[in-house]
């Protein structure tokens, strides 16, 4: 893997392991993401999706292996990576307007702060309009509905124009209608900005509908290490193309087929496929196995 190639990728992980003490959560992850990709991430509860997100964010450090964001090691969260959580993204003591504007205030120098208050306000208003909440600019978060709160949170992240926008189950608490509404909204944003998006969700339909690439993490696989509790790996990785799908696609048989396949490969504890058999069809996906793992894996495949 040449250094030049790595730099083309926004996220690059090689043999990355994340463990909390003896508890290995992410096991030997090989993962790279091209610029402008909409990556949706699924996997059983507790498999380490949020952990992966925290690592990319820089909130935590991986235990071993390589992890580069934009070709650089990262140590702290910063403005190049925005985040929308399921809850607590908004500051409860600020109005919607102030919540969107605060990033501008944080990054302005003292002198700018005096001059650019108005321009920041205008810019914040532009983003509030974009998410359709210009009338609620003066409301505090608790006066907004869940869907409106998430819209403000997205606007709040967008104003910083991050390289990567990360979202951890952002629509998890919304009703189906609002959810679909916001799905269309995030697709529009993606199309317009060309941002890389890393979107964690529990909803397989949402994942397959939104993503240009669907990645499934799972701890249910076998690599020959019997009886040993191992961490999660990427068990499937599908390329769905970058063109935006219409909602009609949700009704097509191919769509539901893929959902069933991912559910089977990633969520079923009894289905323990070998590391060799992972369904990684995305061109960016790759997997490096140690010799030992490879040998054991080959054995497993044969015995199957």
């Amino acid at each position: 893997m040449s250094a030049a190639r790595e730099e083309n990728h926004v996220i690059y992980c090689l043999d990355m392991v994340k463990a909390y003490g003896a508890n290995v959560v992410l096991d030997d992850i090989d993962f790279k993401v091209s610029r402008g990709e909409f990556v949706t991430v699924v996997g059983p509860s507790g498999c380490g999706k949020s952990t992966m997100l925290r690592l990319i964010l820089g909130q935590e450090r991986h235990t071993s292996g390589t992890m580069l964001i934009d070709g650089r090691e990262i140590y702290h969260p910063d403005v190049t990576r925005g985040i929308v959580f399921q809850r607590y993204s908004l500051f409860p003591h600020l109005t919607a307007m102030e919540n969107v504007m605060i990033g501008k205030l944080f990054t302005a120098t003292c002198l700018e702060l005096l001059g650019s208050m108005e321009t920041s306000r205008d810019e914040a208003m532009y983003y509030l309009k974009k998410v359709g909440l210009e009338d609620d600019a003066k409301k505090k978060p608790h006066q907004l509905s869940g869907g409106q709160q998430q819209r403000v949170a997205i606007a709040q992240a967008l104003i910083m124009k991050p390289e990567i926008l990360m979202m951890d189950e952002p629509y998890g608490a919304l009703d189906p209608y609002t959810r679909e509404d916001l799905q269309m909204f995030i697709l529009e944003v993606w199309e317009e900005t060309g941002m890389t998006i890393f979107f964690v969700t529990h909803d397989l339909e949402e994942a397959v509908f939104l993503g240009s690439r669907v990645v499934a993490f799972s701890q249910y696989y076998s690599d020959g290490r019997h009886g040993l509790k191992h961490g999660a790996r990427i068990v499937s990785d599908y390329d769905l193309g970058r063109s935006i799908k219409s909602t009609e696609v949700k009704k097509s048989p191919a769509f539901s087929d893929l959902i069933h396949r991912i559910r089977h490969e990633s969520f079923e504890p009894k289905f323990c496929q070998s590391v060799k058999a992972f369904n990684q069809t995305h061109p960016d996906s790759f997997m490096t196995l140690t010799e030992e793992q490879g040998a054991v894996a080959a054995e497993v495949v044969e015995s199957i």
Partner: protein
Amino acid sequence: MRFFDNKNVNQQMPQKEAQMQMLKWIWSVGVNVLSRIWNTVKTFFSLHYCPSRVAKVLLAIVPFVLLLGTYIHFSNKRHEENPRDKILPTISQMYEQVKIYVVETDKRTDKNLFVDDTLASLKRLLIGVSIASVLSLIWGLSMGIYPWVRSTWMPFVTFVSIIPPLAILPIIFIGLGVEELGKISLIVLGITFLMTRDLKIAVENIPREQIVKALTLGASSWAIVYRIIFPQVMPRFIEMIRVYLSPAWLFLIAAEAIASKNGLAYRIFLSRRYLNMSLIIPIVFWITSIGFLMNFILKKILDWKYRWYVDIKNG
């Protein structure tokens, strides 16, 4: 006024049957009324009871009326036996004493004792609580934010906050003197550590996501402290002051009782020497009123400046 037109009834049925009808009617009305009363009573004592505004006020008055009634009853009884009883003075006895205390100027010191005592006590209390607030705010915030401050000071604060402040009262008085410094120090030592500990917990209760979010928006450490953490801790801090005003009063009263030349508690303990209940009870009432007013003001500040906090708390 009659319910039934007798003539009419008589025409249609015999006398006896009419009476039976009447009895049945009364019976059913009675049962109806009784069951309604019973239902009301049952709801009242159940957890589904939802008192109206008026009912709330009426219910709230009940304990006060009970207290006052009990007092007046026993006071009257004692005064029947001994008209010069001092233990449970009548309202008029108290009025006499209060008049002397509040209106007249003390001949020896040439001061109005009531004003002098109130100001002295308030000054000690407010200075003590202010110092404790500032100290605990700085200390608690830094403990909540910086791991090194937390590791350095948390065990110490936990340990020291367990020491009963009244137990070290003699040490404070010996070390710092019995003048204002000693009294204020007792209040400060009495509540600062507890407030510090609570503030640290308040900071830690701010979701981690908020800090991460602020970092992704380019906030510096300092900006996180004064734009995110401080404004969110502030309402909790005001609530804390409301709670810790009670122990502050306790330490003030202890300090004034033991060594003082003025102050409301000093006056109470001076009056005790002469069994002057006629003055003690009104002063206790006065202290309570001041405390109530402070509590009320803090609550209003919270309602007014931190509406979002109150709204979220009330769901």
